[in-house]
């Protein structure tokens, strides 16, 4: 069975416009979150990491006459970098996955300049695909907050089914009034920088990024930080549409299935890049699932304190940071964590330190009861 890899990549975020510089900021302990005062999206000030419009427009360098939305600019700018590094000809063997929960949802707003039709996700996908001349129909994956990491699993599956040799993934969501008002109605937003797994955690921050990566079976197309995708699974909690299972059932099953496919046991995982949204229920659920799997001593982090929860991008964003963590043998601290706030023991990384690493587990959970786990191994 041929191997499948996650290779060249890009991050467009408030911490920088390429993966290496963003990973460096994260390892230095710098957060992209800050207080935003913008009453057009939220009546009260809120914590977020936003992409600067002017910096984005400058980086985008539109080569066409067409007008693009902010999210399309983010996607194209990110993919431009990843495509350039990959140097792969776009044939009918190259797929494109767009991972997003809400796409151009701001187009529904009466104040928005773009037509409402722009809110259809397939229209967004075509705009991105046509810009680069992809020969295949783009795939939109919209699976709530697991979308970004599930996209990696889906790309691998399409390669293994022999539909494609390479798949590019681009993932992202905007911080909009639509999203903020919704999470606010759940009383899930924290007005301070979020505190994953911490005793005093009070909720999430929503952030925006666009990230992209190449998934390939070709060993000629591997970047220095490339990883092999060993195993993956996505299991539902079958419990509740807006709250996680109290027993962590879906996450437990996802990790178990991913380990089995990887021919690994819990002891083989060097570090866990967890979801860690900093809500009461999510963090507790994760601690329970990790304990059921004997993963409570494995070093783990949540990166939400650096970017906030970036929705459909978060799983891929955190995977890319994980690739850099493996390459540089660094365990990255959970920014915002100070005092254990979950009932089951877990090994939250408190200080960024060097440690030899070769394998990591990425997990995510989301509305609809979905959970995803993917296991990666260092190549070089």
């Amino acid at each position, binding site marked *: 069975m041929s191997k499948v890899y996650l290779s060249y990549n890009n991050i467009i975020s408030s911490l920088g416009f390429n993966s290496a510089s963003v990973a460096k900021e994260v390892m230095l302990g710098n957060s992209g979150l800050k207080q935003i005062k913008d009453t057009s999206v939220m009546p009260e000030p809120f914590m977020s990491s936003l992409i600067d419009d002017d910096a984005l427009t400058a980086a985008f360098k539109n080569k066409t006459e067409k007008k693009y939305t902010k999210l399309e600019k983010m996607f194209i700018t990110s993919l431009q970098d990843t495509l350039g590094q990959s140097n792969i000809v776009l044939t009918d063997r190259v797929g494109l996955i767009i991972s997003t929960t809400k796409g151009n949802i701001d187009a529904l707003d009466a104040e928005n300049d773009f037509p409402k039709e722009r809110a*259809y996700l397939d229209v967004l996908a075509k705009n991105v695909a046509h810009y680069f001349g992809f020969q295949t129909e783009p795939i939109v994956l919209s699976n709530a907050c697991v979308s970004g990491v599930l996209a990696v699993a889906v790309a691998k599956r399409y390669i293994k089914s022999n539909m494609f040799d390479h798949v590019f993934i681009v993932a992202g969501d905007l911080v909009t009034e639509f999203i903020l*008002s919704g999470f606010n109605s759940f009383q899930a937003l924290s007005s301070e920088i979020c505190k994953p797994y911490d005793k005093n955690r009070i909720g999430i921050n929503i952030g925006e990024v666009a990230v992209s990566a190449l998934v390939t079976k070709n060993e000629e197309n591997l970047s220095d930080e490339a990883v092999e995708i060993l195993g993956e699974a996505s*299991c539902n909690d079958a419990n509740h549409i*807006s709250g996680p299972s109290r027993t962590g059932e879906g996450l437990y099953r996802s990790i178990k299935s991913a380990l089995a496919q990887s021919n690994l046991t819990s002891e083989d995982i060097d570090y866990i890049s967890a979801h860690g949204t900093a809500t009461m229920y999510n963090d507790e659920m994760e601690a329970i699932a990790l304990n059921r799997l004997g993963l409570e001593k494995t070093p783990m982090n949540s990166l939400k304190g650096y970017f906030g929860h970036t929705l459909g991008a978060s799983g891929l964003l955190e995977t890319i940071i994980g690739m850099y963590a493996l390459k540089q043998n660094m365990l990255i601290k959970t920014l915002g964590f100070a005092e254990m706030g979950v009932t089951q023991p877990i090994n939250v990384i408190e200080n960024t330190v060097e440690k030899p690493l070769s394998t990591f587990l990425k997990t995510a959970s989301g509305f609809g009861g979905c959970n995803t786990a993917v296991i990666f191994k260092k190549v070089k």
Partner: protein
Amino acid sequence: MKNQFKISSYCHVKQNKISLNGTVLFSAEAEESKFLKQAYKALDVNYSKFFKMDKLSQLAFLAADVLLQHENISEENQENIALVMGNKASSLDTDRKHQDSIQDKASYYPSPAVFVYTLPNIMLGEISIKYKLYSENSFFVFENFKTNYFYNYTNSLIDDKKADKILCGWVNVDDEDYEAFLYLVTPNGNLQHTEKQINTLYNELWKL
């Protein structure tokens, strides 16, 4: 690595009709907005959470329920049935409702009960909860039903032994328009699991 899986059942919902394996089970003259609730009653679904769902989840749930009941799938068995679904309009039908609730600052009423349905994969969660499916969930958006993407993804799940059965299909709600086409891929069944067969079944939707 050719698998020998079959299609054992399929379901269509469109034009105020629900059909199973090509036979109409229920049809109504009612206006579209009332059809799903009438079908719920007529088909004796008996699942009170149905009334909390948005139209997209109701449509998916009803189609899945008809098909899984027919297949004698019971929540007690906690079967490993993957859900692989897609549509064109994502959750836009409910997105528009949430947008209406925040458009006017003088009349601002966002609700968690609406907001949670602004994700298309919620329908997969609803089906999973009812049938205790702790299994793979994937939701895709395309301009229209793309047989090859569903077929290849399903085969990959089978080859990797990620599921024993796969409930696949297309569930779309967009303002007044709606349609659902679901089919169950299993080790046993009367129809071949091929792209040609899936296309034939999908096209029946437009003759309903």
